[in-house]
């Protein structure tokens, strides 16, 4: 059904359930993401896409089911959990750059404090990554001095600095002014081309078509259907998906 990218799965969710109070936000989720695969999660708001993203590095806990990452069951707390998180990059809707640190410090903090890499080495690598996302000239500035698009590109560089096995993108362009969306998507597309494993929650259908191996359509906390972008957009298999697509693709 899906285009095979890597042979082994990097993340596997089995029968995952999650409630917020009485709200059942994740319903029996089964999902495999292979190494090097780019999965886009789309669906109406409240479908559980962001929660799906956040349970993978345990920013949200789950009520039942299992999640394995790189062959190991997800640690519950402590150093083992911190270790897992250091291997899974995360890019947030609201960037969440450390407000009291410079751009370069934002990118080097993780490598220095978590990976225990020497400062000069971390800074050299940090500058390379800022170069890659086109922000090297702003390295000494503070996050509030940058535009949203620039901040989000720094956030991607910050995630990359940890050499993660995967990056989670939780609506990375939803808080951006329209003219800044493309610069962030360009960085993400180049990452996808370089073989990074990605789970992207987004409303950017253009990105899904150009970079995704698979589209996962969610509604009301469940995975309703999943398919290649081409198949999904031209020939959705469920009424729910057809209805959603008709609302966002008509204009």
């Amino acid at each position, binding site marked *: 059904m899906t285009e095979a990218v890597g042979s082994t799965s990097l993340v596997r969710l089995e029968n995952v359930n999650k409630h917020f109070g009485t709200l059942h936000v994740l319903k029996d989720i089964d999902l495999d993401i292979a190494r090097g695969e780019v999965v886009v999660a789309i669906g109406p708001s409240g479908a559980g896409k962001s929660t799906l993203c956040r349970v993978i590095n345990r*920013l949200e806990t789950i009520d039942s089911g299992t999640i394995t990452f790189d062959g190991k069951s997800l640690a519950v707390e402590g150093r083992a959990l911190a270790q897992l*998180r250091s291997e*899974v*990059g*995360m890019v*947030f809707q609201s960037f969440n750059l*450390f407000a*009291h640190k410079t751009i370069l410090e934002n990118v080097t903090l993780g490598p220095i404090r978590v990976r225990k890499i020497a400062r000069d080495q971390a800074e050299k690598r940090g500058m390379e990554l800022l170069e890659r996302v086109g922000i090297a000239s702003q390295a000494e500035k503070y996050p*509030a*001095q940058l535009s949203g698009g620039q901040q989000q590109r720094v956030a991607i560089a910050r995630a990359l600095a940890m050499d993660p096995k995967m990056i989670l993108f939780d609506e990375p362009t939803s808080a951006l002014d329209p003219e800044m969306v493309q610069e962030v998507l360009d960085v993400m597309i180049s990452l996808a081309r370089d073989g990074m494993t990605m789970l992207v929650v987004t409303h950017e259908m253009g990105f899904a078509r150009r970079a995704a191996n698979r589209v996962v359509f969610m509604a009301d906390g469940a995975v309703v259907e999943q398919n290649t972008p081409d198949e999904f957009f031209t020939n959705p298999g469920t009424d729910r998906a057809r209805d959603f697509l008709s609302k966002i693709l008509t204009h």
Partner: protein
Amino acid sequence: MGALVEEFPVILGAFWLTVRLTLASAVAALVLGTVLAAMRVSPFAVLRGVATAYVNTLRNTPLTLVIVFCGLGLGLVLDVSFSESLSTNYLWLSIIGLSAYTAAFVCEAIRSGINTVPVGQAEAARALGLTFTQNLRFIVLPQAFRAIIAPLGSLLIALTKNTTVAAAIGVAEASLTMKSLFERHQDSVVAIFFGFALAFLVLTLPTGLFFGWLSRRLKVAR
């Protein structure tokens, strides 16, 4: 005025003691208050409980009682001793009392500072793999402190004035010295009183101004 000039070295010595009391207690209160605040936001219920009980007890007990407890309870009954010299010993005991008391307020100030740091900051740090302590140390507390510099300044001013309570256990800081000068110069009571009041202003006014300036300078732009 004559009495003030005549006793100037005594007064200076007394205020020097006030300054030392203030600074030593401030440093200790800041350290203890930070530890307490970290405990109050920690994931361990026991630590949270201990810190909460501490804050509630110390914050709601009159300082005079705390100081007297330190002097009599610790000093005389439990025989806690820091020095052969009785006056040095009571000085240390009063520092313990002042810092234990002030730490409760510092803790609450830091906790309100932590509440000003957006959740996303700690979340991003967790997502990078920082541990709880690293998260506090590198991300949350530095931003929390910058948000509460002005209130910390107010606490320091309060502490400066609160050192006068150490007189209760015989520490010869400014207020106790003032009292003994009253006795020696009964004709100049008003002048001595205003002299001491002015000297306190000289200590506390710049503190307030400095902390106000510092808080504007270190404010985190969001």
